[in-house]
């Protein structure tokens, strides 16, 4: 596989962020935050988000993980730094995208440093960060 700086990573689409998956995730994480399972709690916030639950940060991040693994393999991720400029809401279609910023060889491995982000068609970039990925031979 040949990759170089500036190459785009094939996108990964979550067609509809699921409130039910958020509920399962909240149970797995032992996360008491009602924003992830109580639409009334979200509607009461002064953020005009409506009656929609807010996706857990790690769950939004996982869509970018899925993109990287589909691209470079299931054990490819070496480092992932993610920031959260906007929330992800249930019912939304979001797309994970990325771009290679540097390719190098370290300890015999081909390593790609990448900018990654999660995007919504109207609201723009919801999550953003950097990934370090081992590329397959």
């Amino acid at each position, binding site marked *: 596989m040949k990759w170089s700086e500036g190459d785009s990573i094939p996108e990964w689409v979550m067609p509809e962020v699921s409130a039910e998956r958020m509920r399962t995730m909240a149970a*797995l994480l032992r996360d008491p*935050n009602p924003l992830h399972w109580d639409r009334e709690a979200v509607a009461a916030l002064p953020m005009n988000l409506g009656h929609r639950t807010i996706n857990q940060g790690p769950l939004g991040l996982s869509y970018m*993980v899925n993109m990287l693994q589909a691209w470079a393999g299931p054990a490819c991720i070496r480092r992932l*730094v993610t920031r959260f400029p906007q929330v992800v809401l249930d019912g939304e279609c979001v797309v994970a995208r990325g771009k290679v910023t540097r390719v190098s060889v370290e300890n015999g491995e081909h390593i790609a440093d990448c900018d990654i982000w999660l995007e919504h068609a109207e609201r723009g970039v919801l999550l953003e960060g950097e990934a370090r990925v081992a590329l397959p031979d």
Partner: protein
Amino acid sequence: MYSVPAEADINALLGHRFAGGNYRLEHWENVLLTGCTGADLLPDGLAHPVALFHLPITGSGTSIAEMFALGQAESDLSIMIESYDWEIFEPLREEQDYRVEGCIASAERCNEGEREYDRIQFVFDVSEEGRPVARSTITWHYTRNTL
């Protein structure tokens, strides 16, 4: 109006260590976790990397609720994420016993214009038989009087 914690109380969190402990990600848990992400189960017993959020927290003997309480969060709704930094030295696997140690690596009061919040950084180290497997760094903002 919520009572803002004393800055000295926040600063005193620096160096706080969690009890430490072990965590085994069971197959059923990885199946559910992976399903939540919309991905297929990974091959060869690999765990979905999203486990790097809750595995270190639970494994180190703490919980999201305790992390909220340590920073005196004014409510469960008041935490904002600055960043998650996951370093993976070896892929995580199902049914594997991991040792986890965790601490608070940074705790400070921040002021940005009229916005006052406390920034707390948690660092968790995951290892297997002494070999480093992963490090998770969680940085949260504890907002004050914003709700």
